Each structure stands twice: as C-alpha cells, then as structure tokens.
C-alpha cells in the first residue's frame, strides 16, 4: 500500500517539480508538503511528494540501495 521512494528535487515550477530518483526523473506534485527548494530530498508516492527527508537519510538509503545490488532482486 505504500510504495514510496526517496529522491532529490532538481527543478521546481510552482507546485510541480522534477525529482531525481537514482537516474530516473519523476514529475512530482508538491501540494502535500510545505516550502521546499531545489536540492531538498522528498519521498514520492503516486506522483506526489508526501514528506521531506533529511539529506543524510537519503544518502544512507542510496548506499544501502547500491550495496544490495540496486534493488534488482
């Protein structure tokens, strides 16, 4: 019920943002979170950011991800 993934905001246009999740760019709406800026990290679910996350946490997730073989299995 909960497929949401962390990514970094690379572009903002009003309530629409481009979020970079790994190497994938996902069009994301910002209606559900407060003020954010380019470079902030968010959790994306169904094309909406549902929370911000700390940079260290996002980087830790990336490391775990890479270590587990990019989640392929």
């Amino acid at each position, binding site marked *: 019920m909960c497929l949401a993934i962390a990514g970094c905001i690379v572009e903002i246009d009003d309530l629409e943002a481009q979020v970079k*999740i*790994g*190497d*994938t760019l996902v069009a994301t709406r910002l209606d559900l979170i407060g003020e954010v800026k380019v470079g902030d990290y968010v959790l994306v679910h169904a094309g909406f950011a549902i929370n911000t996350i700390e940079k260290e946490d996002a980087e830790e997730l990336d490391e775990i991800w890479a*270590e*587990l*073989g990019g989640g*392929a*299995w």
Partner: protein
Amino acid sequence: MDISDSSQKVALGHGSGGAMMQQFITEQLLPALGGQSAEGLEDAATLSISAADIAFTTDSFTVQPLFFPGGDIGSLAVHGTVNDLAMRGATPRYLSLGLIIEEGLPLDTLRRIVQSIGQAARDCDVIIACGDTKVVGRGAADAIFINTSGIGECGDHIPSVTAATPGDRVLVNGTLGDHGVAVMMAREDLQISSAVESDTAPLHTLVGAMLEAGGEAVHTLRDLTRGGLAAGVNEIVAASGVGITLEAATIPVRPEVGGACEVLGLSPYAVANEGKLVAMVAPEAAEKVLAAMRAHPLGRNACIIGEVAAEPVATVRLHTPIGTTRILELPAGELLPRIC
C-alpha cells in the same frame, strides 16, 4: 499522388493492389530493403540453402511507442527473428517481412521504419527475400504490426531448451531489463523519464563465438525477451526437467534500470530484453565460453550467474545477497506499474 511528400499518410488504397501499391513498393519499400528491381517481382522467392538442417522461426512485433531510445519497431523486427534463429546455433540467412499498417499512419513514419528494417538486415547480413503489405482501416491495427519469419542454416551442434544438464553454469551476456524500461519510459503519459536505452541487437555473431569456444558444451541458448530472465530460466527448467539456482549478487542490472524498476514497481528480472541471452554451459567449458563472450562487443558484461542442479525440478531459486533463498517465479500476465 506524390509519395515523397512527407505530409502524406498511408491510405487504404495503398494496400489493396493496383498502381498506388506498385508505386509505394517500388519507390519506398524496395530501395530501403535493398531489393531487386520492380520488374522482376515474383510471387515467391527461391532460396539456396546448403545446410543439412534448416532453422525456421516467426515472430510478430506490436511495440508501442514505435520509436524508443536505442531502437524502433523496425530494428526490433529484424533482431528478434535473427536472435530466435541464433538460439539454435543457426546462421540467419533469409527473412520474410509482413506489414499490416493502420490507415492514417504518416508515410514518413513508415519510411523511417522501413529504412530501419533495411539497415538492420544489412548489418545482420540477412536478405529480406519476400514480403507483403496490407493496409487496414483506422482502429483495426495500432499504427503498424510487423511479422518476420526467418530461415537459418544450422551447424553441427544445435542447442536445445531440453538439454540443460545438472552441473551446467548459467551465463548471461550483459545487463538485464534495459529494453523494457526504455520502452516504458518512452510512453509520454507516464511523466517519468530516464536515459535508459533499449539493448536491441542481433546476437548471431556472439553465439558464433560462443559455439566456437564451447562447441557441444553449449547445451542451451535462450533469448530473454518478454518476461525477461525469469521467464527464460523458468522455461528451461520446465523443458529440461532440472533446477536452477541463481546468485542475485552476480546478476548484472544497471543502477538506472534498477532504480526505474523500483519507481514503476517492477522487477528487472521480469522485464523484457532484446539483445540478451541466457546460456547453459557444461562446467568444464564455462570459463572459455565466458572469455569468448567478453571478447565480443555484445558480451562485454557477460558473467556466470548461477548453476543447474538435478533438484528441485522445474524450479528456479534465487540466493539473495543477504543470505536467504527464495523462488524466482515465472512472471504472470502483463506488467502493470503498481502503486499501492
């Protein structure tokens, strides 16, 4: 009508015989496919085949969108059939080409596709020996459907899906899931994009190198198309009556592909490829075959990803990087991006 005018669209008159059809074939189709002059068009081609055994296969192509990073429906139509022949160790020689075109398809699009087919065929050194074109009304086809049948000459050794043997090593020639992800990303309605490209490629020369290195030790070859690696290995264990254990940590997947699959809720092991094969090779020849693959442009990332055992029969197991084991199941039905 002026068929060179790029604003022209395919109309029903194109496929129903007569002068329009002739003009279309003569001026557009044949030159792109490298065919002979229109005067000599026979009802059937006669072929010279020297091999004792002939490989014969057919495949139809309905991919949407028609063009995607790394390829298009045209190159796919050639590579797909060439690869089916290659999986039996056959040298691809001739293809047939059937086009079913939806009324309204821009002629320019058709031209691009046909040129792509011609180029791919030349690159594979195969001759498009015969073909057919039909145009159907709007809505009766989705832009264009392509069928290619292929004929190849078998060599001394013919790998088989039934020949996987306990002890065999499982090899792949490179990263998995690229094609399926590239095609999904090319769908504009998803609003998700990445730089992943399709891996569509003809594998017959790679197979040639593998057979030269391993000969009869190359028991099974399977191209990993729809359903990905998971479908391929499951088909093999069922047909050969063996079991396979794969090491997840060794299976090559590009991080971009893994990431895109996570976003879409898919497994890279279940996503289509168009330039990848899986091979079952007897253990004594595995390293030699692997080296031959890595020396080939389409096998640079080749690796051994697992092993065949006698049991559990018709089962594929995946050993995870965290030390647990689970089944790798045959993918079910169509792939739907999941959310919740």
